[in-house]
């Protein structure tokens, strides 16, 4: 039972990592942009939800919804006003811009909220659990995070493969110049992609924020897990990203079971092992 429990807890943790990684995977898939500030945007989203819930007294779902809309708009504006100017053949300028954004967001949050650890308050829901079989308890909050991760991927897949906007995303990802010949304004497509990415990061922020403490400086560490999940799963594949999150989560819980000091290291070792065995990840997108 201990083995199964470890695996289940790991898979649930993987759901949160997958949520971290989805936004990163999405932007990379559509525009080949690596957003080094992704982890910090997740933390920013967590603080927006926190302010909505504590300063304005909104319920957590309402605060989340408002943050989703706000972060979508922020992402759209960020792309149109900042990233668009540096996006091109050279991958260095956008990397440097997002690296700078990471520092700006961290220090902005530090200035506004101080360095204290915070947590989102989900009331009794945080600690409630479900006894699946005797001896195997599953926390409702982690379970919900995994279900939400799967739901978000399903929604994104529907968007990508069943709608005109999704075709425009994929066409632009294939060849932005030819996509323009279809009447697709690639600048707006990119802006919507960044918007959706940041909107998804709000979901990640909430799933994380009711599970663990956060403070303005933890963004880069979250980014690292997100990166690992994306790479393990294979670039450009959303289901792969979920699988990558799971591998990472399970490796960490298994490592923690052996020795609590091994938790983080086990995750990184699993990452290296996958890279060694499958350099393109577990489920690489069809196109190289």
């Amino acid at each position, binding site marked *: 039972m201990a083995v199964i429990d470890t695996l289940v807890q790991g898979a649930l943790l993987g759901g949160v990592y997958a949520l971290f990684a989805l936004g990163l995977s999405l932007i990379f898939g559509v525009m080949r942009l690596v957003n080094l500030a992704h982890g910090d945007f997740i933390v920013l989203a967590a603080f927006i939800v926190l302010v909505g819930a504590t300063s304005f007294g909104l319920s957590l779902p309402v605060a989340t919804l408002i943050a989703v809309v706000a972060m979508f708009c922020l992402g759209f504006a960020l792309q149109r006003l900042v990233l668009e100017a540096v996006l091109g053949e050279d991958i260095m300028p956008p990397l440097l811009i997002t690296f700078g954004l990471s520092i700006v967001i961290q220090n902005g949050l530090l200035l506004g909220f101080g360095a204290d650890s915070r947590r989102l308050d989900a009331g009794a829901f945080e600690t409630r659990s479900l006894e699946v079989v005797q001896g195997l308890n599953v926390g409702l909050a982690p379970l919900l995070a995994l279900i939400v991760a799967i739901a978000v991927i399903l929604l994104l897949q529907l968007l990508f493969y069943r709608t*005109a906007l999704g*075709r*425009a995303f*994929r*066409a632009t*990802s*294939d*060849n932005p*110049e*030819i*996509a*323009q*010949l*279809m*009447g*697709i*304004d*690639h600048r707006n497509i990119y802006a919507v992609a960044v918007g959706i990415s940041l909107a998804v990061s709000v979901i990640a922020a909430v799933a994380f924020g009711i599970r663990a403490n956060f403070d303005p400086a933890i963004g880069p560490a979250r980014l690292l897990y997100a990166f690992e999940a994306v790479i393990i799963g294979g670039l450009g594949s959303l289901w792969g990203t979920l699988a990558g999150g799971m591998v990472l989560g399970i490796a960490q819980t298994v490592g923690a079971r052996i020795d609590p000091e091994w938790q983080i290291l086990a995750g990184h070792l699993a990452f290296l092992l996958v890279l060694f065995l499958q350099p393109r990840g577990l489920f690489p*997108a*069809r*196109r190289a």
Partner: protein
Amino acid sequence: MTTLLATHALDAFYGDFQALFGVDFELAQGEAVAVVGANGAGKSTLLKSLVGLLRNRHDAIHFLDHDIGDRPAPEIVRMGLALVPEGRQLFASLSVEENLLVGAYGAARREPWALDTVYELFPVLRERRRGNVADMSGGQQQMVAIGRALMSNPRVLLCDEISLGLAPVIVEDIYRLIPRIRAGGTSVVIVEQDVARALRTVDRFYCLQEGRVTLAGRPADVSFDDVRKAYFGA
């Protein structure tokens, strides 16, 4: 006849390199026009300028009573210009049908071309609609590229080297469609290296050489020798 699309003293540049010098070009409503010339004469550059992939002077290009020389490509495409690019340039991660559907993304009109009518034009595409474009023959890929452009129901269809790399019998099939495309109310511009074929298909032609128009007129009014001189230089 009313002029639909025209350029006035169009110069086009790639960085410091000038590819077109003062090109005057005109296309009337319902007309089919060929642009012929050797490699590097500026044929593709002219098409890229028309559709907005190369930006120009505001008043260098005129379409539907608007100066469009400096407008971005998506805007011009939405006004009713479509380009079948050289080398087909299909979207590899989209299925055959999705490639056609994405062509309708910025469509100003829904008639007469839609999935059904394009499949009628190219029945083989209906059979392979779920397939991957990379698995198709060159001729079939060219059909997808033409169908994709038609899906936007353009007023003007620009075709860049649609016979390149295809078997002669396939080329024949594709050229046989041009009258049907014109019957749908679309004017056609054909860029072609096969001069004889191009001249058989169109009402008028332009010959480009090193970025300048060296000859223009009706195929019936010029001798083959005139064209040869305009094509290669004296």
